[in-house]
C-alpha cells in the first residue's frame, strides 16, 4: 500500500505533462517541421543565414519558447511511447525498465535542452 502512494501521485503529474506536450506538439510542431525539415532544405524558401538565425535565437523569450517546445513534447513522447509498448506490443514484464527509459529519457533531454539553450554565446 505504502509503495503505491508515490506512484499514485506521479501518474497524474506525468499525465499533465503528456497532455501539455500534446498541445505544444499539435500547435507548434507542424509549422517547425515544414519550415526547417522541408521548405529550407529543399530550397522552397530562402534558408536563414547563420547571423540571422543566431539573432533570432539570442533573444531570451525565444530561448524560453524553444525550451518549452523541446521539454514538454519529450514528456508527451515518454508517456505515449510507454503505453504503446505496454498495450500495443504487450511488453508488460519489462514495465519498470520501460518506465525508467521513457521518463528518464525525457528528463535527460530536458536537462540537455536547458544546457544547449543557455550556453548560446
Amino acid at each position: 500500500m505504502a509503495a503505491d502512494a508515490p506512484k499514485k501521485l506521479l501518474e497524474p503529474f506525468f499525465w499533465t505533462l503528456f497532455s501539455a506536450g500534446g498541445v505544444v506538439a499539435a500547435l507548434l510542431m507542424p509549422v517547425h517541421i515544414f519550415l526547417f525539415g522541408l521548405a529550407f532544405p529543399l530550397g522552397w524558401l530562402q534558408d536563414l543565414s547563420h547571423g540571422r538565425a543566431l539573432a533570432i535565437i539570442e533573444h531570451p523569450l525565444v530561448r524560453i519558447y524553444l525550451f518549452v517546445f523541446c521539454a514538454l513534447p519529450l514528456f508527451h513522447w515518454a508517456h505515449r511511447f510507454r503505453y504503446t509498448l505496454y498495450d500495443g506490443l504487450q511488453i508488460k514484464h519489462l514495465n519498470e525498465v520501460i518506465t525508467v527509459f521513457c521518463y528518464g529519457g525525457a528528463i535527460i533531454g530536458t536537462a540537455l535542452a536547458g544546457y544547449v539553450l543557455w550556453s548560446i554565446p
Partner: protein
Amino acid sequence: MTPHEKKGATQYTPYHPRWYRTRVSTYWWLWKWYYLKFVLRELSSIFVAYFVVITLLQVHSLSRGSETYARFEERMRNPLTIALNAISFFFVLFHAITWFNLAPRAIVARLGGKRVPDILIAGSNYVAWLAISATVAWFILR
C-alpha cells in the same frame, strides 16, 4: 497444468472459479483500421521526439559558429533526412488532427447553461492552430 498456470498469470482466488482469459495476439491492432489508427497515433510520438532532437542539434550547431551550422544545413539536405522529415511531418499532422478532434471530449464548456457544441470547441482549436502557425512562420521569415 495449463500454460497459464505455469506462467503464474492466474492465481487462486477464494470462492471464485479460475479466471478465463484468452491470449491476445501481439499484432491485435493490425487487423482493424480503428485499432491501427490508434497505434499510428501513438507512434506519432516517436516523430515528435525525433524533431525535438533535430531542433536541439540545430541550436547547438548554431551556437558553435557558421561553419558548424553550414555542416548541419548540409546534413539536413541529405535525401534520407528529407524523407524522414516528410514522414515526421505527416505523423505530426496526424497527431495534431486527432488531438484537436479529441479536444471536445476533454473540454466540456458550458455557456449560458448550455453545452458548447463539439464542433465549436474543435473549430476554435483549428483556428488557433492556423493563427499560431502563421505567427511562427512570420516571425522566422520576416
